């Protein structure tokens, strides 16, 4: 199985310095574990051992003027990173579409949403359309599917819910932050990793088309309660939005509480009997 992972020019949320986007590093781990499973290894072994890797099986792609700290992805378990050299104002889509179209990848992984600018999460959809691939968002676990050429993936839904999908490859999948944490960084693996620079497809965009702003963590939306409603109603709306069914018990006995929790877990299908 050949896997491509897309890397965007991220910035650290607090320092504002160029940095890899964590969810894209998580994609490396998902890809490695998938390859490890396919090779019949225990997934953990394959993931933990950064020195032994099948080169060329997992390739990273970045379209931009400079790979910068993205070469650190090589220290997180990626063995080969291809930088498609384009201007800072160029649209990365044509370069990525050309590069991914030239080699046939079974699976393309991308981050869920970026950290501002053009890597705002639209690119994977545009790329899927350009390549004619199906796209599934928010994967948090990947496994080989029941038939050859299929993939079983777990999709992260709000409030911790998960949905398992079976998908025919090739496909493009975006990764959710609920996926396992990135593999720890290994300096020597980064040093050993292969960074390849190719000419990208120049695709200048009209200036001013995209407004760029520094990344800022958005406040959580609590409730859709109508403005001007009473405090009780807003509280009710907020707590109901956070609870999705179930009952509010005030100061219950431990037995009652445990019974209620079990009943709720059965209801939402976490417990089966």
């Amino acid at each position, binding site marked *: 199985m050949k896997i491509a992972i897309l890397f965007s020019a991220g910035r*650290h*949320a*607090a*320092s504002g*310095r160029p*940095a890899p986007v*964590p969810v894209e590093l998580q994609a490396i781990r998902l890809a490695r574990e998938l390859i490890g499973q396919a090779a019949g290894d225990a997934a953990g072994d394959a993931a*933990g*051992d*950064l*020195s032994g890797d099948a080169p060329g099986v997992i390739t990273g792609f970045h379209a931009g003027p400079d790979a910068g*700290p993205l070469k*650190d992805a090589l*220290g*997180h*378990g990626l063995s080969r990173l291809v930088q498609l050299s384009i201007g800072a104002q160029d649209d990365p889509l044509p370069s990525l579409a050309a590069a991914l179209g030239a080699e046939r990848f079974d699976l393309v992984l991308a981050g869920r949403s970026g950290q501002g600018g053009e890597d705002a999460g639209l690119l994977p959809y545009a790329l899927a359309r350009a390549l004619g691939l199906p796209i599934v968002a928010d994967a948090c676990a990947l496994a080989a599917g029941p038939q050859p050429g299929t993939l079983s993936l777990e999709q992260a839904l709000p409030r911790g819910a998960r949905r398992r999908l079976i998908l025919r490859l090739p496909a493009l999948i975006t990764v959710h932050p609920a996926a396992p*944490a*990135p*593999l*720890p*960084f*290994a*300096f*020597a*693996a980064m040093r050993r990793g292969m960074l390849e620079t190719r000419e990208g497809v120049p695709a200048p965009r009209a200036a001013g088309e995209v407004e760029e702003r520094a990344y800022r963590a958005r406040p959580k939306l609590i409730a859709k309660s109508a403005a001007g409603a009473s405090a009780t109603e807003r509280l009710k709306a907020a707590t109901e939005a956070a609870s999705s069914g179930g009952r509010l018990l005030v100061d219950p006995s431990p037995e009652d509480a445990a019974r209620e929790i079990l009943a709720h877990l059965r209801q939402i299908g976490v417990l089966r009997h």
Partner: protein
Amino acid sequence: MTPIMNPATPAAFCLSLVILSLAGLALALMARRARLWCAGRPVPVEWARGLRALPKRYLVDVHHVVGRDPYAARMHALAAGGLLGGSGLALLALIPALGGARLYWALIALAFAGALAGGVMVGRRRYPARPARLSGGRFQILPLLLTFYAAGGFLVAFDAALGGALPALAWPALALAIAGGLGLVLQIDRGPMRHAFAGAAHLVVHPRPGRFEGERATALAPLDLDAPRLGVATPADFAFNRLVGFDACIQCGRCETACPAFAAGQPLNPKRLIQDLAAALQPNATNATYKGSPYPNARAVAGIGGPDLPLVGAGAMIHPDTLWSCTTCRACVEECPMMIEHVDAIIDLRRHQTLELGALPAKASPPLMELRYADEPGGRALAARTDFAAGLTLPLILATGRADVLLWLGEGAYELRYGRTLRALVTLLQMAGVDFAVLGPEERDCGDLARRLGDEATFQRLAAENIATLARYSFSRILTADPHALHALRNEYRAFGGAYEVIHHTAFLDGLLAGGRLTVGALHEARVTYHDPCYLGRYNGEIDAPRRLLDRLGLARLEMERAGKRSMCCGGGGGAPVSDIEGERRIPDIRMAQAAATGAGIVAVACPQCSAMLDGVTGERPEVHDIAELVLMAVEAGSAKAARKDAAGKDVAGKDAARKDAARPPEPVA
């Protein structure tokens, strides 16, 4: 032939020959072991200097450590002195002029009598019950071999001194000496006697010769990041003098009783670790011969190794959890009579795990990642470091370009609890009119955490960037309340071109008080015990200034059983809080129990890590206060007293009020 040229007795002459052949055998066995050391990486060693310094290093430095256990010191002096003295003299008796003299044999008998007494003392320590810290196995038969050899030698020499009056005793005694001596010599290769020659060699080629010249010599050695393989994977990756050091271990177990991770039931036992490293040097090695206390809650390992086989891993000698349990507190190094550098070995192994394999504990990886992209292990904005000082004026050095004292805030500044300490310190500096400034958003993490976790690449980058920042400003001293930052800036940046005079806030405040720039009222009736931070006490030898400072505050100072350079770690160093290896107890709980046992109501600390670890202990316990907070309390008590004195005009009332103040439980400062 004149009578004087004859050997005193035939048995005595045979004893000399036996010792000669045993010495030959011993040399062969030593050579065999020493050849294994050549597997190690070559490093430049000042042989001449080491050889010249050997007697002093042994008689002064080693015995300074051994002498902390007076019984062991007497035992070792008698056993080693008697054994070497008696054997050496008996060997010289092959010179006819000496061998024929009865007085000379009396001298030999005396030496062997000393060795016999030492051997009996070795036995009394191990029988009937062997203390848990001592190893069994080959070590348990050592007293028998010692007493056999010494008793045999004594009787033969005694008989010779009497001119052969006891021939019936001499020949059986010679047999006894041969049995014991042969046993001892065969223990050179793998048994306890290896420590004698490996220990001497270690003293000659010691990797930190500065330790014998009054330096603390505790800075980690920089790693060449361009080397083909980073850190230590196999025994052959160690420098050869490190391998000599592992072989020097006599398994006395002092390290194991000092190790905080061992006490907490985490899978680390420094003695076992050194033994595993020493055993792995042998081709087709196993760890089966070790007969001391195991790693507590040991994780299963295959226990196989060799000079070119990996040391760490479930399929090797040492489980990774063992490495990551270490708090790098150096208590083992401080206690080791053989001057072994355990912490250096652990860091070398960690470097390989981190830099080559990326095999860190899961929770240790995110802080290193934040350090790479935000220069701060919590991933917080550097500008937020000064948030603790909201409401205080904190001069930035950027504004003026110079200051007398540069205040290095460190990692603790982000923490609410330690922010109170820094507020107290800043308030005191302002009261004393000190010309100080901070780097503010230009201060990056000092890199201590990254370096202890084996991420030398990040440490070296942070060090270079901090040194470049510091080079832009002019200041005479760096003041810090963080001993980890102090150690990095004072000792470890030197290798990267940053030489600074760095002073800890306890020494600085002590100076301010001594110079009369701050006046304190007494904090009466408070009983306080001082917890030495490892990186200040053991790493930098600063144990007096904090105590002097506490005494100036009029506090009743109580000492814990483990204090000063032999203090116990709080569990906060070496990245242990982020590695978070599971044990049975928590290290800070153990340390807090020791503090409570003194009866003190306050534990004085001088380090953000200690502050966080000890303040995290739950239940009934003494209060935790940084010394800066106590000084501020005392200064405020003093000024309150002065104010009242002015108002009331009566000294007596002022004293009462001050006493009432001190009786109150200490409040958060500032």
